[in-house]
Every structure is written in C-alpha cells, then in structure tokens.
C-alpha cells in the first residue's frame, strides 16, 4: 500500500537560515509527488510537483524539491527562510489512473516555525 512519512512533526528555523523538510514514500511504481503548504486557517496551496524527468524541481516561493528514487525520498528545500514561510507543509503521493490522480495519500504534515 502507498504511504507517506514526514518524520518531523515540528521544525523551528531562524529567519534567513536554510530549510529542508523530509518526505519518504512507499510506492511500487513511479510515483507522482507533491508538496502543499497550508497557512493557518487556509486551504492547501500547491508548492511543486514531480511526475518525471529532471529530479530537481522548482516551485513557487523559492522552494525546490529533489526526487531520489534510491532513497524513496522527496525532500523540500529552501536556501533562505522568510518569516512568511511559517506554515504547515504536506507531502503527498499519487498515481495516474488514466486521466486523474485518484486518491492522493498525504503525510501527516510538518509544522514550520520561523524565529526572528
């Protein structure tokens, strides 16, 4: 069965520091991978996605993620965190069901706090 693990429930970083959020997935075939961000009281916003090709993908707000098949990982990175990045981040895995993503499987999320 598909699953997604985000090992870190809560991370605190200083503003201007680099950030890496971990995501590990379990999936038999080539997965479709996503990172979403959720600000308090808001819906989920898509940051970036990986379907195939270049394993380093760029997203919005200066985020990037790298797909590593050998490690079953899709970690999210940002070189310099801003206070506005404080939010909860969700990794998700899906598969193409001949036209749709079908059921996205989400990790439990990592809450990011940013210190001034």
């Amino acid at each position, binding site marked *: 069965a598909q699953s*997604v693990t985000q090992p870190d429930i809560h991370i605190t970083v200083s503003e201007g520091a680099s950030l890496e959020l971990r995501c590990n997935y379990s999936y038999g075939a080539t997965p*479709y991978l*996503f990172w*979403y961000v959720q600000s308090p009281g*808001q*819906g*989920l*916003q*898509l940051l970036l*996605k990986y*379907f195939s090709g270049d394993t380093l993908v760029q997203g919005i707000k200066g985020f990037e993620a790298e797909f590593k098949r050998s490690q079953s990982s899709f970690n999210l990175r940002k070189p310099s965190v801003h206070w506005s990045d404080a939010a909860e981040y*969700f990794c*998700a895995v*899906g598969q*193409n069901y001949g*036209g*749709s*993503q*079908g*059921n*996205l499987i*989400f*990790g*439990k*999320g990592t809450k990011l706090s940013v210190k001034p």
Partner: protein
Amino acid sequence: DAGITQSPRHKVTETGTPVTLRCHQTENHRYMYWYRQDPGHGLRLIHYSYGVKDTDKGEVSDGYSVSRSKTEDFLLTLESATSSQTSVYFCAIEGDGTDTQYFGPGTRLTVL
C-alpha cells in the same frame, strides 16, 4: 487561485442532525474530491467524483454520502452527524489530464 468555493465556511451542529456541505467550482473540471483533515492524520479521502453522477468511496467514507448532479457542484452529506465527524473538510478539483489537485478554502464543522 483555482475557482473553488466551499459553503458554509463554518458550521456548528448537534449530534444526530443531517448536514450538507457544498463545493462549487467554476473551472469545469471533471474530477472532484472531498477530504477531511484531523490533527495528526493529514488529509484523508472521503469520496470522489469522476463526472456527473459518477462517484466512488475513499478511505474514510462511512457515515458520508455524496452527490454530483452538475459539473460545478459536489455535495457532501452527513446523514446523522456524530462528534467523530468534527473536522475540517476540504474539497479539491482536478482537470482531466492535469494530474494535479487544487484545494478549496475548507469548512470547519463542529458536532456537539
């Protein structure tokens, strides 16, 4: 932002009452989804639709039903609300062939 609205945005109800949540899209997308979000669980799929009158169950469908009579609307009904259904409910839409889901703003439901 994708054209998705959810109504109501907040609702408080009592155990045993029926509740209907509405998801409305202006994107004419084929696929629509209902998820619930609970602390420590991430998002879990309740039901989804792959076209008008075409729906299927997700991971946590017990106690929920859905209907889709028009492309733009996907309704989620709790036939008899229970306290365990207190949650934040998100609707998502996906265009055919895009392989990407976009989420609405959510509905916070409290069942007393």
